């Protein structure tokens, strides 16, 4: 008997793999069901017993979403907000994380300690005053109001600092001796070495912004500016009965982040583990 066939007959191996298949079904079934229902005719999913596959697949739900419900606009809104937030927050967090790790300056450790202490404060505590502040600044109901508060994050700074500590000082010192300014060292020496953490940070920022709900819900009162999650939540309150339409909306919202995750999952998971190993 070969090792492989022996392994296949081992009842424990069978149980382990069976349990994994069950868990994967639990994780994927809702997403597959969403995809299937999004291609059903209007009303088809609301029959008994509930059908698993569309009898006559149709794109009508997607057409209706984009032609009548303005899904294209919300998609672009989400894309603009998430892109702006990703570019800005990556730059600011990487600059700060690098400085906290590698540049010596007065008050550095105290500032970093203060940031770490603030990490325990949940964001909701700041929401009411932040709303009033943005209202004063005329930023309520603008994308700037959504993006600005997210342009730097304590956790992101911490992540970059952890990573940047492995950059050899000699390398930075050598660049200084060659007469390079701090800004040039940052762009030409440091940034290329931080590439892995930059990608991780960018994936986190983009997914976080794309999926964010509570803050855009509060700041964006004008429907024209809504991001996908906010638009989807209000659509789902209007169209409670139209499960097929709502599933198409869910597909449009979820698919981009799922694809992004599949493409960059190594970086995403690394970030997750960096956050946990202190």
């Amino acid at each position, binding site marked *: 008997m070969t090792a492989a066939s022996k392994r296949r007959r081992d009842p424990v191996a069978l149980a382990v793999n069976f349990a*994994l298949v069950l868990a994967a079904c639990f994780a994927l079934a809702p997403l597959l069901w969403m995809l299937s229902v999004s291609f059903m005719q209007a009303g088809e999913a609301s029959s008994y017993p509930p059908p698993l596959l569309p009898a006559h697949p149709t794109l009508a739900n997607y057409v209706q979403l984009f032609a009548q419900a303005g899904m294209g606009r919300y998609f672009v809104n989400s894309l603009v907000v998430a892109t702006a937030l990703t570019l800005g927050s990556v730059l600011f967090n990487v600059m700060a994380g690098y400085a906290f790790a590698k540049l010596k300056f007065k008050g550095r450790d105290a500032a970093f300690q203060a940031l770490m202490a603030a990490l325990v404060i949940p*964001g909701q*505590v700041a929401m009411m005053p932040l*709303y009033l502040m943005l209202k004063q600044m005329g930023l309520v109901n603008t994308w700037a109001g959504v993006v600005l508060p997210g342009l730097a994050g304590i956790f992101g700074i911490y992540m970059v600092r952890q990573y940047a500590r492995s950059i050899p000082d000699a390398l930075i010192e050598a660049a200084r001796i060659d007469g390079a300014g701090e800004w040039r060292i940052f762009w030409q020496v440091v940034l290329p070495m931080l590439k892995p953490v930059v990608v991780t940070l960018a994936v986190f920022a983009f997914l976080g912004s794309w999926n964010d709900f*509570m803050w855009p819900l509060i700041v964006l009162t004008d429907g024209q500016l809504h991001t996908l999650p906010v638009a989807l939540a209000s659509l789902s309150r209007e169209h409670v009965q139209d499960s097929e339409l709502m599933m198409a909306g869910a597909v449009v919202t979820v698919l981009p982040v799922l694809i992004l995750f599949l493409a960059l999952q190594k970086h995403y998971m690394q970030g*997750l583990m960096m956050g946990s190993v202190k």
Partner: protein
Amino acid sequence: MKPRNLAGWMFVAPALAVIGLFFILPVAAGLALSFTDFDLYALADLRNLRFAGLDNYVRVLSLPLFWTALLNTLEFVVLGVPLSIGLSLGCAVLLQSPLARFKPFFRTALFAPVVTTLVAVAVIWRYLFHVRYGLINSGLGHIGIGPIDWLGDPHWSMPAIVVFAVWKGFGANMIIFVAALQAIPDELYEAARIDGARRWAQFRHITLPMLGPTLLMVSVLTMAGYFQLFAEPYVMTQGGPLQSTVSVLYLMYEEGFRWWNLGQASAVAFLLFVLMVGVTQAMRRLGRGTEEAASA
């Protein structure tokens, strides 16, 4: 290395400015706001603003809905956190098993719900939980369990939201557990095998103690996250039925941004914050005590 004060501060300035202006300052202002009667009238004209001392806190604490929301949130935390961590740990152990096949596929599949948009998948689960046309009741019907009105029955609404939240989140902790499991030296298991320890004994006496610190950290973070329940009830139940899914944060949102009682909403936010810090600190202390007891 000589200090570079100016350069250093220039690099951290943008980030610190954002965090200071849009986070630290509002947190401090929030504390101040919670001691005022800031409401719709003050929103219209700041001259209507009055210092209210502890009035907001007294009012919130005497509000029956606050206690309902607190109990609902605690139900969500007490049911959800152990379930979520148990499932994460179970799947991590399965994924780490040398007997498991197609590991990259399973890892990605189990993790996929984590990256999905909460609002979108909440919409999906609302239909899955549908009393007549939902797949869950249809599946239960096959094994002879009568239809349950998951989101319409106050007894089932919070458990239903727990099931959804566990589905959405367990993959994140699973990945952290996988990393921690990989860090346990193989020699420990080999020694145990030589001593004749069975699988369960190995898990109980090697895996769990070695995972101790990770388990504690994951529990604290997961619990902090579960206390901030909001979007699930907002999309799936709107706090109903019979206020059975109103969470503390949902109450804060309604008070603050629906009724514009921003002072009172701030008091709710700070009460939640104090509760979270209290519970997570108690857990840390408890966890450290257990570790010391185990090593003593």
